[in-house]
């Protein structure tokens, strides 16, 4: 389980969130319509999870653990160095080399149908 509702009422994303976590995350968001999302312990997230975050319009407590996620930009993610005590966003001069290795969360090729 990488998506949980913690005791303080926040929805937590933990570790590597796969495509299968998108629906449980969505269910939690719907069941807790004003709960914030805490992704400080999130290492990687499948695009399906990211698009749920985008649609959620919830306060996002970050920055996330994973380099790729930390570097994500867009209206929902915003600059993370604003407001609370998060480290400054990575300087953009150099390519974020770690991206390549961060993102091996590609699901294994799904098994073909067998019957």
């Amino acid at each position, binding site marked *: 389980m990488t998506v949980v509702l913690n005791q303080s009422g926040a929805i937590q994303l933990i570790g590597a969130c796969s495509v*299968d976590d998108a*629906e449980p995350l969505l269910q939690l968001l*719907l069941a807790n319509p004003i709960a914030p999302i805490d992704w400080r312990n999130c290492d990687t997230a499948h695009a399906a999870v990211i698009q749920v975050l985008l649609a959620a319009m919830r306060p996002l407590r970050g920055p996330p653990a994973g380099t790729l996620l930390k570097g994500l930009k867009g209206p929902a993610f915003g600059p993370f160095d604003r407001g609370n005590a998060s480290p400054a966003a990575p300087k953009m001069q150099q390519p974020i080399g770690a991206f390549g290795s961060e993102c091996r969360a590609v699901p294994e090729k*799904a*098994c073909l*149908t*067998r*019957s």
Partner: protein
Amino acid sequence: MIKLLVVDDSALARKLIGQMFATEPDFSIQFARNGSEALGLIALARPDVVTLDVHMPEMDGLACLDRIMVEHPCPVVMVSSATAAGAEATLEALRLGAVDFVTKPTGAVSLRIADMAQPLIEKVRAAAGARLRSSLRLRERVRHRTGQTSGALRAPVRKARPAARGEGLVLVGTSTGGPPALEMLLTALPATFPWPIVIAQHMPATFTAAFARRLDGISQLAVQEIRTSVALKPGCAYIGRGDADVVISRRAGDLVGMAAPAQSGYPWHPSTDRMVRSALNQLDPRQLIGVLMTGMGNDGAEAMALIHAQGAKTIAEAEETAVVWGMPGELVKAGGADYVVPLHKIAAQLRKLVG
């Protein structure tokens, strides 16, 4: 020793299929180049199992299959193309009595035909031990002979959808032999059947839409494929999209069926186990009925045993009618089946349970 007859008009295909079985010590193989040669060989050699190419010149695969089933019934595995037209033909073949099918890889066939070897060998071996539905075939045969389509005989006059009487869900899992079994099950249910039926039939992605259309045309229930997501309604049956999984969820309070990318943890797709587990998150187990029908392997047995233990009713198809008594057999062995009934009585059992 399993006697196999390979029927294919392409010399290359015959050679490749022959090679696939060459390493299997328990097979002896014969070849036929066309339908009439196949019929002659079947009469003479009485093979245990036949593989039949759907597309052949002269007598095509379907015509040949029809004659095999009438003249010398024996287990047939169809070799078809993974196209929309291939899907229609294959579904027709399953209705005519073929036990199972494999799809030819698309593109450079000779390069990728190896992908086909493993499933073909498994399916042919299972088919060799398969049971033919003689009673069902007879009726079907008469229909076919008289040139009527089953759709014409069973004009689906749909009544108004029944109002949901208490929320509930029927979950059906099946694999080898599933398409004709589902046809029998769904056509025996009335349009007023109060619970939505969600079906995981192991199939490639290109087949499920055509399959749903076919079932929709002949049954009183409205049948559709779950392509993306759909609200589940009484009087309707839903076929999970092939090569993907189907999960049960809720949107705005209503139950929905949703296609989900195939989860690698499950070997077969759409996975019955995953479907049943997802339903358990949304509904009380007493609002669930699990049905496990003919199929190789054990998909669904574990999850259905689980909901059985929590109070759901489960039905396993009896060994006497199952083409392959794998999945239902596993459920029975796990002690997870409330009822073990032959195929033609499953519909009546369901009606009694939701009555």
